[in-house]
Protein backbone atom coordinates (compact mmCIF):
# COMPACT_ATOMS: atom_id res chain seq x y z
CA UNK A 1 0.00 0.00 0.00
CA UNK A 2 2.91 2.32 0.92
CA UNK A 3 0.64 5.12 1.95
CA UNK A 4 -0.81 5.98 -1.38
CA UNK A 5 -4.37 6.30 -0.15
CA UNK A 6 -5.33 9.61 1.35
CA UNK A 7 -6.12 7.96 4.63
CA UNK A 8 -3.63 5.58 6.03
CA UNK A 9 -4.02 4.10 9.46
CA UNK A 10 -2.03 6.77 11.20
CA UNK A 11 -3.95 9.52 9.49
CA UNK A 12 -7.28 8.00 10.35
CA UNK A 13 -6.39 7.69 13.99
CA UNK A 14 -5.19 11.27 13.95
CA UNK A 15 -8.36 12.61 12.40
CA UNK A 16 -10.58 10.64 14.71
CA UNK A 17 -8.66 11.85 17.73
CA UNK A 18 -8.72 15.48 16.68
CA UNK A 19 -12.38 15.43 15.79
CA UNK A 20 -13.22 13.66 19.01
CA UNK A 21 -11.30 16.26 20.94
CA UNK A 22 -13.02 18.96 18.92
CA UNK A 23 -16.37 17.75 20.18
CA UNK A 24 -15.56 16.37 23.59
CA UNK A 25 -13.44 19.17 24.95
CA UNK A 26 -16.03 21.91 24.52
CA UNK A 27 -18.79 19.55 25.47
CA UNK A 28 -17.22 18.53 28.73
CA UNK A 29 -16.40 22.11 29.47
CA UNK A 30 -19.91 23.28 28.89
CA UNK A 31 -21.96 20.35 30.05
CA UNK A 32 -20.09 18.80 32.93
CA UNK A 33 -19.91 20.29 36.37
CA UNK A 34 -16.48 21.52 37.42
CA UNK A 35 -16.29 18.79 40.02
CA UNK A 36 -16.49 16.04 37.47
CA UNK A 37 -13.20 14.27 36.80
CA UNK A 38 -13.77 14.72 33.07
CA UNK A 39 -14.41 18.42 33.31
CA UNK A 40 -12.15 20.47 31.07
CA UNK A 41 -11.54 23.78 32.74
CA UNK A 42 -12.07 27.19 31.20
CA UNK A 43 -8.36 27.58 31.31
CA UNK A 44 -7.71 24.49 29.25
CA UNK A 45 -10.14 25.10 26.40
CA UNK A 46 -8.42 28.10 24.84
CA UNK A 47 -5.06 26.62 25.72
CA UNK A 48 -5.80 23.43 23.85
CA UNK A 49 -7.30 25.52 21.08
CA UNK A 50 -4.04 27.36 20.83
CA UNK A 51 -2.21 24.08 20.49
CA UNK A 52 -4.49 23.08 17.66
CA UNK A 53 -3.67 26.29 15.84
CA UNK A 54 0.00 25.66 16.35
CA UNK A 55 -0.50 22.15 15.06
CA UNK A 56 -2.08 23.50 11.91
CA UNK A 57 0.84 25.86 11.49
CA UNK A 58 3.22 22.96 11.94
CA UNK A 59 1.37 20.94 9.32
CA UNK A 60 1.68 23.87 6.93
CA UNK A 61 5.40 24.13 7.58
CA UNK A 62 5.81 20.41 7.16
CA UNK A 63 4.19 20.57 3.76
CA UNK A 64 6.89 22.86 2.43
CA UNK A 65 9.78 21.63 4.51
CA UNK A 66 9.09 17.96 4.82
CA UNK A 67 7.88 17.37 1.31
CA UNK A 68 9.27 20.20 -0.74
CA UNK A 69 12.56 20.80 1.02
CA UNK A 70 11.89 24.48 1.52
CA UNK A 71 13.02 25.22 5.03
CA UNK A 72 10.99 28.27 5.87
CA UNK A 73 12.29 30.30 8.75
CA UNK A 74 9.56 32.81 8.12
CA UNK A 75 6.28 31.02 8.40
CA UNK A 76 5.51 32.95 11.53
CA UNK A 77 4.96 35.89 9.20
CA UNK A 78 2.05 34.23 7.44
CA UNK A 79 0.65 33.07 10.73
CA UNK A 80 0.88 36.57 12.11
CA UNK A 81 -0.63 38.16 9.01
CA UNK A 82 -3.61 35.86 9.24
CA UNK A 83 -3.78 36.75 12.89
CA UNK A 84 -3.69 40.44 12.15
CA UNK A 85 -6.46 40.13 9.61
CA UNK A 86 -8.59 38.47 12.24
CA UNK A 87 -7.42 40.91 14.89
CA UNK A 88 -8.47 43.83 12.73
CA UNK A 89 -11.91 42.35 12.37
CA UNK A 90 -12.15 41.84 16.10
CA UNK A 91 -10.92 45.38 16.72
CA UNK A 92 -13.61 46.77 14.49
CA UNK A 93 -16.19 44.72 16.34
CA UNK A 94 -15.36 46.58 19.53
CA UNK A 95 -17.00 49.62 18.02
CA UNK A 96 -17.82 52.29 20.56
CA UNK A 97 -16.97 50.06 23.47
CA UNK A 98 -13.34 51.14 23.45
CA UNK A 99 -12.05 53.27 26.29
CA UNK A 100 -12.40 56.45 24.26
CA UNK A 101 -15.82 55.48 23.04
CA UNK A 102 -14.94 56.22 19.46
CA UNK A 103 -17.34 54.28 17.26
CA UNK A 104 -14.92 53.87 14.38
CA UNK A 105 -11.36 54.21 15.51
CA UNK A 106 -9.70 51.61 17.71
CA UNK A 107 -8.28 52.99 20.94
CA UNK A 108 -4.69 53.10 19.85
CA UNK A 109 -5.62 55.24 16.89
CA UNK A 110 -7.47 57.68 19.08
CA UNK A 111 -4.55 58.34 21.28
CA UNK A 112 -2.20 58.52 18.33
CA UNK A 113 -4.49 61.24 16.97
CA UNK A 114 -5.71 59.42 13.90
CA UNK A 115 -8.54 61.35 12.39
CA UNK A 116 -9.91 58.62 10.23
CA UNK A 117 -9.45 54.96 9.62
CA UNK A 118 -6.44 54.17 7.39
CA UNK A 119 -7.52 52.70 4.06
CA UNK A 120 -6.18 49.27 4.82
CA UNK A 121 -8.55 48.99 7.74
CA UNK A 122 -11.57 49.51 5.56
CA UNK A 123 -13.81 46.54 5.13
CA UNK A 124 -12.53 44.70 8.13
CA UNK A 125 -15.76 45.27 9.97
CA UNK A 126 -17.28 42.63 7.69
CA UNK A 127 -16.46 39.10 8.69
CA UNK A 128 -16.51 37.63 5.18
CA UNK A 129 -14.08 40.27 4.01
CA UNK A 130 -11.81 39.65 6.97
CA UNK A 131 -12.01 35.92 6.43
CA UNK A 132 -11.05 36.42 2.81
CA UNK A 133 -8.12 38.54 3.87
CA UNK A 134 -7.00 35.85 6.27
CA UNK A 135 -6.39 33.74 3.21
CA UNK A 136 -5.47 36.39 0.71
CA UNK A 137 -2.93 38.48 2.56
CA UNK A 138 -0.59 35.68 3.55
CA UNK A 139 -1.33 33.95 0.27
CA UNK A 140 -0.50 37.00 -1.80
CA UNK A 141 2.65 37.73 0.12
CA UNK A 142 3.76 34.14 -0.19
CA UNK A 143 2.91 34.09 -3.85
CA UNK A 144 4.89 37.22 -4.54
CA UNK A 145 7.81 36.12 -2.47
CA UNK A 146 7.80 32.62 -3.89
CA UNK A 147 7.31 33.81 -7.43
CA UNK A 148 10.57 35.71 -7.29
CA UNK A 149 12.53 33.35 -5.12
CA UNK A 150 11.63 30.12 -6.87
CA UNK A 151 12.03 31.58 -10.31
CA UNK A 152 15.45 32.87 -9.36
CA UNK A 153 16.21 29.38 -8.06
CA UNK A 154 16.99 30.48 -4.59
CA UNK A 155 17.31 27.30 -2.60
CA UNK A 156 18.62 25.82 0.61
CA UNK A 157 19.89 28.06 3.33
CA UNK A 158 19.71 31.05 1.04
CA UNK A 159 15.99 30.65 0.83
CA UNK A 160 15.74 29.99 4.53
CA UNK A 161 17.62 33.12 5.38
CA UNK A 162 15.60 35.36 3.10
CA UNK A 163 12.39 34.00 4.56
CA UNK A 164 13.86 34.96 7.87
CA UNK A 165 14.74 38.38 6.53
CA UNK A 166 11.14 38.70 5.36
CA UNK A 167 9.62 37.98 8.73
CA UNK A 168 12.23 40.11 10.45
CA UNK A 169 11.46 43.05 8.19
CA UNK A 170 7.76 42.60 8.80
CA UNK A 171 8.36 42.45 12.51
CA UNK A 172 10.24 45.73 12.46
CA UNK A 173 7.56 47.24 10.30
CA UNK A 174 4.73 46.14 12.54
CA UNK A 175 6.62 47.30 15.60
CA UNK A 176 6.55 50.77 14.14
CA UNK A 177 3.86 52.71 15.81
CA UNK A 178 3.18 54.66 12.63
CA UNK A 179 2.18 51.61 10.67
CA UNK A 180 -1.35 51.77 11.95
CA UNK A 181 -1.42 48.32 13.48
CA UNK A 182 -1.00 49.26 17.08
CA UNK A 183 2.75 48.97 17.21
CA UNK A 184 4.29 46.86 19.90
CA UNK A 185 1.04 46.53 21.82
CA UNK A 186 -0.64 45.01 18.85
CA UNK A 187 -4.35 44.41 18.86
CA UNK A 188 -6.07 43.25 22.00
CA UNK A 189 -9.03 43.60 24.33
CA UNK A 190 -11.41 42.04 21.86
CA UNK A 191 -15.07 41.96 22.79
CA UNK A 192 -16.93 39.71 20.46
CA UNK A 193 -16.79 37.69 17.30
CA UNK A 194 -19.71 37.36 14.91
CA UNK A 195 -21.80 38.94 17.61
CA UNK A 196 -20.95 36.40 20.28
CA UNK A 197 -19.01 37.55 23.31
CA UNK A 198 -15.51 36.27 22.93
CA UNK A 199 -15.11 35.24 26.53
CA UNK A 200 -18.29 33.17 26.66
CA UNK A 201 -17.82 29.47 27.20
CA UNK A 202 -19.83 28.63 24.14
CA UNK A 203 -17.79 30.92 21.93
CA UNK A 204 -14.62 29.38 23.26
CA UNK A 205 -16.02 25.95 22.60
CA UNK A 206 -17.02 26.93 19.10
CA UNK A 207 -13.58 28.36 18.40
CA UNK A 208 -12.01 25.20 19.70
CA UNK A 209 -14.22 23.14 17.47
CA UNK A 210 -13.41 25.37 14.53
CA UNK A 211 -9.71 24.92 15.22
CA UNK A 212 -10.10 21.16 15.27
CA UNK A 213 -11.98 21.28 12.00
CA UNK A 214 -9.36 23.54 10.50
CA UNK A 215 -6.61 21.22 11.60
CA UNK A 216 -8.34 18.22 10.14
CA UNK A 217 -9.15 20.13 6.98
CA UNK A 218 -5.61 21.41 6.67
CA UNK A 219 -4.30 17.95 7.26
CA UNK A 220 -6.56 16.45 4.64
CA UNK A 221 -5.62 19.07 2.08
CA UNK A 222 -1.93 18.54 2.67
CA UNK A 223 -2.30 14.81 2.80
CA UNK A 224 -4.28 14.85 -0.42
CA UNK A 225 -1.51 16.80 -2.03
CA UNK A 226 1.35 14.69 -0.85
CA UNK A 227 -0.12 11.36 -1.82
CA UNK A 228 -1.00 12.60 -5.28
CA UNK A 229 1.49 12.54 -8.06
CA UNK A 230 1.97 16.21 -7.36
CA UNK A 231 3.27 15.19 -3.96
CA UNK A 232 5.64 12.71 -5.49
CA UNK A 233 7.02 15.44 -7.69
CA UNK A 234 7.43 17.63 -4.62
CA UNK A 235 9.51 14.97 -2.94
CA UNK A 236 11.51 14.57 -6.12
CA UNK A 237 12.13 18.30 -6.10
CA UNK A 238 13.22 18.07 -2.50
CA UNK A 239 15.76 15.36 -3.21
CA UNK A 240 17.04 16.29 -6.64
CA UNK A 241 15.64 19.55 -7.84
CA UNK A 242 17.55 19.88 -11.03
CA UNK A 243 16.89 16.28 -12.04
CA UNK A 244 13.20 17.01 -11.81
CA UNK A 245 13.62 19.81 -14.25
CA UNK A 246 15.21 17.53 -16.76
CA UNK A 247 12.09 15.43 -16.62
CA UNK A 248 10.13 18.44 -17.76
CA UNK A 249 8.59 19.60 -14.50
CA UNK A 250 8.38 23.31 -13.86
CA UNK A 251 9.86 23.16 -10.42
CA UNK A 252 9.08 26.75 -9.56
CA UNK A 253 5.36 26.24 -10.12
CA UNK A 254 5.27 23.15 -7.99
CA UNK A 255 7.01 24.88 -5.17
CA UNK A 256 4.94 27.99 -5.55
CA UNK A 257 1.70 26.12 -5.23
CA UNK A 258 2.73 24.29 -2.08
CA UNK A 259 4.30 27.39 -0.66
CA UNK A 260 1.29 29.61 -1.21
CA UNK A 261 -1.09 27.02 0.07
CA UNK A 262 1.05 26.49 3.10
CA UNK A 263 1.11 30.21 3.78
CA UNK A 264 -2.67 30.34 3.57
CA UNK A 265 -3.01 27.49 6.01
CA UNK A 266 -0.63 29.30 8.31
CA UNK A 267 -2.84 32.35 7.94
CA UNK A 268 -5.90 30.37 8.94
CA UNK A 269 -4.04 29.02 11.94
CA UNK A 270 -3.14 32.56 12.93
CA UNK A 271 -6.69 33.76 12.48
CA UNK A 272 -8.04 31.07 14.78
CA UNK A 273 -5.26 31.63 17.24
CA UNK A 274 -5.95 35.29 17.83
CA UNK A 275 -9.45 35.11 19.31
CA UNK A 276 -8.37 32.27 21.54
CA UNK A 277 -5.31 33.92 23.04
CA UNK A 278 -6.80 37.39 22.90
CA UNK A 279 -3.88 39.28 21.46
CA UNK A 280 -1.87 39.65 18.29
CA UNK A 281 1.26 41.71 18.27
CA UNK A 282 4.42 42.01 16.22
CA UNK A 283 6.22 39.56 18.48
CA UNK A 284 4.55 36.87 16.41
CA UNK A 285 6.77 37.91 13.52
CA UNK A 286 9.90 37.31 15.55
CA UNK A 287 12.28 35.01 13.70
CA UNK A 288 12.64 32.92 16.84
CA UNK A 289 8.95 32.00 16.60
CA UNK A 290 9.39 30.71 13.09
CA UNK A 291 12.43 28.74 14.09
CA UNK A 292 10.46 27.21 16.90
CA UNK A 293 7.77 26.13 14.50
CA UNK A 294 10.36 24.34 12.45
CA UNK A 295 11.53 22.70 15.62
CA UNK A 296 8.06 21.41 16.43
CA UNK A 297 8.04 19.77 13.06
CA UNK A 298 11.44 18.24 13.57
CA UNK A 299 10.54 17.01 17.01
CA UNK A 300 7.38 15.41 15.77
CA UNK A 301 8.89 13.96 12.65
CA UNK A 302 9.57 15.84 9.46
CA UNK A 303 7.72 14.80 6.36
CA UNK A 304 4.91 13.02 8.11
CA UNK A 305 2.23 15.71 8.65
CA UNK A 306 0.79 13.85 11.61
CA UNK A 307 4.21 14.02 13.20
CA UNK A 308 4.34 17.76 12.68
CA UNK A 309 1.04 18.23 14.45
CA UNK A 310 2.14 15.92 17.20
CA UNK A 311 5.39 17.81 17.60
CA UNK A 312 3.56 21.10 17.96
CA UNK A 313 1.39 19.58 20.64
CA UNK A 314 4.18 17.95 22.56
CA UNK A 315 6.53 20.88 22.54
CA UNK A 316 3.89 23.40 23.47
CA UNK A 317 2.36 21.26 26.13
CA UNK A 318 5.86 20.75 27.45
CA UNK A 319 6.43 24.46 27.42
CA UNK A 320 3.20 25.19 29.26
CA UNK A 321 3.97 22.59 31.81
CA UNK A 322 7.63 23.40 32.32
CA UNK A 323 7.07 27.15 32.59
CA UNK A 324 4.59 26.41 35.34
CA UNK A 325 6.42 23.79 37.35
CA UNK A 326 10.04 24.70 36.61
CA UNK A 327 9.85 28.44 36.04
CA UNK A 328 13.54 28.90 36.74
CA UNK A 329 14.89 25.92 34.87
CA UNK A 330 12.42 25.13 32.17
CA UNK A 331 14.79 26.17 29.43
CA UNK A 332 17.08 23.38 30.51
CA UNK A 333 14.26 20.94 30.20
CA UNK A 334 13.10 22.21 26.83
CA UNK A 335 16.62 22.48 25.47
CA UNK A 336 17.39 18.99 26.64
CA UNK A 337 14.22 17.74 25.00
CA UNK A 338 15.38 19.10 21.66
CA UNK A 339 18.83 17.63 22.00
CA UNK A 340 17.54 14.27 23.10
CA UNK A 341 15.02 14.06 20.30
CA UNK A 342 17.66 14.84 17.70
CA UNK A 343 20.11 12.35 19.08
CA UNK A 344 17.87 9.47 19.87
CA UNK A 345 14.84 9.95 17.67
CA UNK A 346 16.26 10.91 14.31
CA UNK A 347 12.85 10.57 12.72
CA UNK A 348 11.07 12.44 15.47
CA UNK A 349 8.50 11.21 17.88
CA UNK A 350 6.39 9.73 15.15
CA UNK A 351 9.42 7.74 14.04
CA UNK A 352 9.21 6.00 17.36
CA UNK A 353 5.88 4.59 16.35
CA UNK A 354 7.35 3.38 13.09
CA UNK A 355 10.33 1.84 14.81
CA UNK A 356 8.27 0.09 17.40
CA UNK A 357 5.73 -1.31 14.98
CA UNK A 358 8.48 -2.36 12.61
CA UNK A 359 10.43 -4.02 15.35
CA UNK A 360 7.34 -5.89 16.39
CA UNK A 361 6.90 -7.22 12.92
CA UNK A 362 10.41 -8.31 12.12
CA UNK A 363 13.32 -8.32 14.48
CA UNK A 364 16.36 -6.90 12.80
CA UNK A 365 20.05 -7.27 13.49
CA UNK A 366 21.59 -4.79 15.81
CA UNK A 367 23.49 -3.15 13.00
CA UNK A 368 22.50 0.41 12.47
CA UNK A 369 23.66 1.67 9.10
CA UNK A 370 25.61 4.84 9.53
CA UNK A 371 24.55 8.02 7.88
CA UNK A 372 24.57 7.23 4.22
CA UNK A 373 24.80 10.31 2.12
CA UNK A 374 28.07 12.17 2.25
CA UNK A 375 27.34 15.50 3.82
CA UNK A 376 27.11 18.25 1.37
CA UNK A 377 28.16 21.67 2.42
CA UNK A 378 25.19 23.03 4.27
CA UNK A 379 22.52 22.05 1.86
Amino acid at each position, binding site marked *: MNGSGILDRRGTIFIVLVLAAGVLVPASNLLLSPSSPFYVSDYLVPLLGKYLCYALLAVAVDLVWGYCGVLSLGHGAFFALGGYAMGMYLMRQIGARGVYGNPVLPDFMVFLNYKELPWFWLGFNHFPFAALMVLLVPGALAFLFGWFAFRSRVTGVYLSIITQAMTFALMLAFFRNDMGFGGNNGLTDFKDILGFPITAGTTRGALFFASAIALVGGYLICRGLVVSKYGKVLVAVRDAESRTRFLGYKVANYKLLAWTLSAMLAGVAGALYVPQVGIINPGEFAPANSIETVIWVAVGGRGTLVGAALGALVVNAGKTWFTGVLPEAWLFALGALFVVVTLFLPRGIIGLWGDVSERLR*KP*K*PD*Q*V*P*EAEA*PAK*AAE
Partner: protein
Amino acid sequence: MLKVENLDLYYGAAHTLRKVSLEATKGQVTCVLGRNGVGKTSLLRAIVGQRPIAGGSISYNGQDITRMRTYDRAALGIGFVPQGREVFPLLTVKENLETGYARLAGKDKYVPDEVFELFPVLKSMLGRRGGDLSGGQQQQLAIGRALVTRPGLLVLDEPTEGIQPSIIKDIGRAISYLRDKGDMAIVLVEQYFEFARELADSFILMERGEVVARGDRSGLDGDDVRRLMAI
Protein backbone atom coordinates in the same frame (compact mmCIF):
# COMPACT_ATOMS: atom_id res chain seq x y z
CA MET B 1 48.35 -9.56 3.51
CA LEU B 2 44.65 -8.98 3.48
CA LYS B 3 42.49 -11.72 4.77
CA VAL B 4 38.74 -11.50 4.81
CA GLU B 5 36.90 -14.36 6.42
CA ASN B 6 33.23 -15.22 6.47
CA LEU B 7 32.04 -11.71 6.11
CA ASP B 8 28.36 -11.03 6.77
CA LEU B 9 26.81 -7.70 5.97
CA TYR B 10 23.29 -6.34 6.21
CA TYR B 11 21.46 -3.35 4.90
CA GLY B 12 18.68 -3.08 7.41
CA ALA B 13 17.12 -6.47 7.22
CA ALA B 14 18.61 -7.37 3.84
CA HIS B 15 21.39 -9.89 4.12
CA THR B 16 23.71 -8.58 1.43
CA LEU B 17 26.97 -10.41 2.00
CA ARG B 18 26.93 -14.01 3.15
CA LYS B 19 30.09 -15.53 4.52
CA VAL B 20 32.33 -13.94 1.96
CA SER B 21 36.02 -14.77 2.23
CA LEU B 22 38.81 -13.24 0.25
CA GLU B 23 42.56 -13.10 0.34
CA ALA B 24 44.95 -10.71 -1.29
CA THR B 25 48.70 -10.99 -1.29
CA LYS B 26 51.51 -8.67 -2.06
CA GLY B 27 52.45 -8.48 -5.67
CA GLN B 28 49.17 -9.94 -6.82
CA VAL B 29 45.91 -8.64 -8.22
CA THR B 30 42.80 -10.19 -6.77
CA CYS B 31 39.71 -9.60 -8.85
CA VAL B 32 36.17 -9.52 -7.55
CA LEU B 33 33.69 -10.30 -10.28
CA GLY B 34 29.97 -10.46 -10.45
CA ARG B 35 26.91 -8.91 -11.98
CA ASN B 36 25.21 -5.71 -10.91
CA GLY B 37 24.02 -5.70 -7.37
CA VAL B 38 25.69 -8.86 -6.15
CA GLY B 39 27.58 -7.04 -3.43
CA LYS B 40 31.01 -6.21 -4.81
CA THR B 41 30.97 -2.63 -3.70
CA SER B 42 29.59 -3.62 -0.34
CA LEU B 43 32.50 -5.98 0.13
CA LEU B 44 35.06 -3.34 -0.67
CA ARG B 45 33.42 -0.81 1.57
CA ALA B 46 33.53 -3.32 4.37
CA ILE B 47 37.22 -3.83 3.77
CA VAL B 48 38.09 -0.16 3.96
CA GLY B 49 35.80 0.29 6.93
CA GLN B 50 32.99 2.33 5.44
CA ARG B 51 30.38 -0.29 6.24
CA PRO B 52 29.91 -1.99 9.57
CA ILE B 53 29.79 -5.74 9.32
CA ALA B 54 27.68 -8.17 11.21
CA GLY B 55 30.02 -11.13 11.26
CA GLY B 56 33.35 -12.39 10.10
CA SER B 57 36.79 -10.90 10.39
CA ILE B 58 39.21 -8.83 8.42
CA SER B 59 42.90 -8.81 9.04
CA TYR B 60 45.65 -6.88 7.39
CA ASN B 61 49.30 -7.83 7.68
CA GLY B 62 48.33 -10.19 10.43
CA GLN B 63 46.62 -7.46 12.41
CA ASP B 64 42.93 -7.78 13.12
CA ILE B 65 41.27 -4.69 11.72
CA THR B 66 37.67 -5.83 11.90
CA ARG B 67 36.66 -3.14 14.36
CA MET B 68 39.11 -0.51 13.28
CA ARG B 69 37.99 2.90 12.07
CA THR B 70 38.26 3.84 8.45
CA TYR B 71 41.00 6.39 8.92
CA ASP B 72 43.06 4.03 11.03
CA ARG B 73 42.88 1.47 8.27
CA ALA B 74 43.92 4.11 5.80
CA ALA B 75 46.77 4.98 8.09
CA LEU B 76 47.90 1.36 7.92
CA GLY B 77 48.17 1.77 4.19
CA ILE B 78 44.85 0.77 2.68
CA GLY B 79 44.16 3.00 -0.30
CA PHE B 80 40.71 3.18 -1.83
CA VAL B 81 39.31 4.19 -5.17
CA PRO B 82 35.57 4.15 -4.69
CA GLN B 83 32.87 3.55 -7.21
CA GLY B 84 31.43 6.86 -8.28
CA ARG B 85 34.78 8.65 -7.90
CA GLU B 86 33.92 10.69 -4.83
CA VAL B 87 36.44 13.40 -5.49
CA PHE B 88 36.10 16.40 -3.19
CA PRO B 89 34.15 18.66 -5.50
CA LEU B 90 35.18 22.03 -4.11
CA LEU B 91 38.83 21.24 -3.58
CA THR B 92 41.18 21.87 -6.44
CA VAL B 93 42.86 18.96 -8.12
CA LYS B 94 46.01 19.74 -6.20
CA GLU B 95 44.17 19.85 -2.91
CA ASN B 96 42.40 16.63 -3.73
CA LEU B 97 45.74 14.98 -4.17
CA GLU B 98 47.06 16.54 -0.99
CA THR B 99 44.35 14.97 1.12
CA GLY B 100 46.44 11.86 0.67
CA TYR B 101 49.17 13.38 2.84
CA ALA B 102 47.22 12.70 6.00
CA ARG B 103 48.96 9.42 6.71
CA LEU B 104 52.37 10.44 5.45
CA ALA B 105 55.41 11.62 7.31
CA GLY B 106 56.66 15.10 6.49
CA LYS B 107 59.31 14.07 4.02
CA ASP B 108 56.89 11.99 2.03
CA LYS B 109 54.42 14.76 1.53
CA TYR B 110 54.70 15.13 -2.18
CA VAL B 111 52.81 13.75 -5.13
CA PRO B 112 54.76 10.86 -6.66
CA ASP B 113 55.78 11.40 -10.25
CA GLU B 114 54.07 8.26 -11.42
CA VAL B 115 50.71 9.89 -10.78
CA PHE B 116 51.36 12.60 -13.30
CA GLU B 117 53.02 10.21 -15.69
CA LEU B 118 49.97 8.04 -15.63
CA PHE B 119 47.50 10.91 -15.79
CA PRO B 120 49.13 13.88 -17.47
CA VAL B 121 45.81 15.70 -17.59
CA LEU B 122 45.89 16.13 -13.83
CA LYS B 123 49.12 18.05 -14.04
CA SER B 124 47.62 20.54 -16.42
CA MET B 125 44.56 21.03 -14.26
CA LEU B 126 46.03 21.34 -10.80
CA GLY B 127 44.14 24.54 -10.06
CA ARG B 128 40.73 23.40 -11.28
CA ARG B 129 38.11 22.28 -8.80
CA GLY B 130 37.59 18.56 -8.63
CA GLY B 131 33.87 18.88 -9.21
CA ASP B 132 34.40 20.78 -12.44
CA LEU B 133 36.35 17.99 -14.05
CA SER B 134 34.80 15.72 -16.61
CA GLY B 135 33.73 12.31 -15.43
CA GLY B 136 36.79 10.56 -16.76
CA GLN B 137 39.12 13.17 -15.38
CA GLN B 138 37.54 12.71 -11.99
CA GLN B 139 38.09 9.00 -12.18
CA GLN B 140 41.74 9.60 -12.97
CA LEU B 141 41.96 11.96 -10.05
CA ALA B 142 40.42 9.39 -7.75
CA ILE B 143 43.04 6.83 -8.72
CA GLY B 144 45.85 9.34 -8.49
CA ARG B 145 44.68 10.43 -5.09
CA ALA B 146 44.81 6.89 -3.78
CA LEU B 147 48.33 6.48 -5.11
CA VAL B 148 49.49 9.57 -3.24
CA THR B 149 48.97 7.71 0.03
CA ARG B 150 51.58 5.07 -1.05
CA PRO B 151 49.22 2.28 -0.15
CA GLY B 152 50.27 -1.21 0.76
CA LEU B 153 46.87 -2.45 -0.26
CA LEU B 154 45.05 -0.76 -3.08
CA VAL B 155 41.32 -1.31 -3.29
CA LEU B 156 39.84 -0.34 -6.64
CA ASP B 157 36.13 -0.31 -7.41
CA GLU B 158 35.63 -0.27 -11.16
CA PRO B 159 38.53 2.07 -11.85
CA THR B 160 38.09 2.13 -15.60
CA GLU B 161 34.57 3.45 -15.54
CA GLY B 162 34.22 6.42 -17.83
CA ILE B 163 37.85 6.50 -18.86
CA GLN B 164 38.96 6.75 -22.45
CA PRO B 165 40.47 3.60 -23.99
CA SER B 166 44.03 4.83 -24.19
CA ILE B 167 44.12 5.65 -20.54
CA ILE B 168 42.47 2.37 -19.62
CA LYS B 169 45.39 0.74 -21.28
CA ASP B 170 47.71 2.97 -19.27
CA ILE B 171 45.90 2.09 -16.07
CA GLY B 172 46.23 -1.57 -16.91
CA ARG B 173 49.93 -1.10 -17.46
CA ALA B 174 50.18 0.87 -14.26
CA ILE B 175 48.44 -1.79 -12.24
CA SER B 176 50.72 -4.48 -13.54
CA TYR B 177 53.66 -2.20 -12.87
CA LEU B 178 52.56 -1.68 -9.30
CA ARG B 179 51.95 -5.35 -8.89
CA ASP B 180 55.29 -6.20 -10.32
CA LYS B 181 57.03 -3.82 -7.98
CA GLY B 182 55.90 -6.38 -5.47
CA ASP B 183 55.18 -4.17 -2.49
CA MET B 184 51.50 -3.77 -3.04
CA ALA B 185 48.47 -5.98 -2.89
CA ILE B 186 45.61 -5.03 -5.16
CA VAL B 187 41.93 -5.83 -4.89
CA LEU B 188 40.09 -4.96 -8.06
CA VAL B 189 36.41 -4.95 -8.87
CA GLU B 190 35.92 -4.82 -12.57
CA GLN B 191 33.03 -5.34 -14.94
CA TYR B 192 35.13 -4.87 -18.00
CA PHE B 193 35.97 -8.50 -18.38
CA GLU B 194 38.86 -8.24 -20.78
CA PHE B 195 40.59 -5.83 -18.52
CA ALA B 196 40.10 -8.04 -15.50
CA ARG B 197 41.24 -11.13 -17.27
CA GLU B 198 44.48 -9.54 -18.28
CA LEU B 199 45.34 -8.40 -14.79
CA ALA B 200 43.92 -10.92 -12.40
CA ASP B 201 46.22 -13.27 -10.58
CA SER B 202 43.30 -14.73 -8.71
CA PHE B 203 39.63 -14.01 -8.58
CA ILE B 204 36.41 -14.55 -6.72
CA LEU B 205 33.10 -14.54 -8.43
CA MET B 206 30.03 -13.44 -6.53
CA GLU B 207 26.36 -14.10 -6.93
CA ARG B 208 23.73 -12.70 -4.60
CA GLY B 209 26.17 -11.92 -1.87
CA GLU B 210 27.89 -15.25 -1.97
CA VAL B 211 31.14 -16.38 -3.45
CA VAL B 212 30.20 -18.94 -6.06
CA ALA B 213 33.57 -19.48 -7.64
CA ARG B 214 37.15 -18.68 -6.93
CA GLY B 215 40.43 -19.55 -8.52
CA ASP B 216 43.51 -18.25 -10.21
CA ARG B 217 43.92 -16.56 -13.56
CA SER B 218 43.34 -19.72 -15.55
CA GLY B 219 39.95 -20.26 -13.94
CA LEU B 220 38.65 -17.11 -15.54
CA ASP B 221 38.25 -18.68 -18.92
CA GLY B 222 35.96 -21.37 -17.55
CA ASP B 223 32.43 -21.57 -18.82
CA ASP B 224 31.08 -21.16 -15.31
CA VAL B 225 32.43 -17.72 -15.09
CA ARG B 226 31.12 -16.64 -18.45
CA ARG B 227 27.74 -18.06 -17.64
CA LEU B 228 27.53 -16.40 -14.27
CA MET B 229 28.55 -13.07 -15.68
CA ALA B 230 25.82 -13.28 -18.26
CA ILE B 231 22.40 -11.84 -17.61
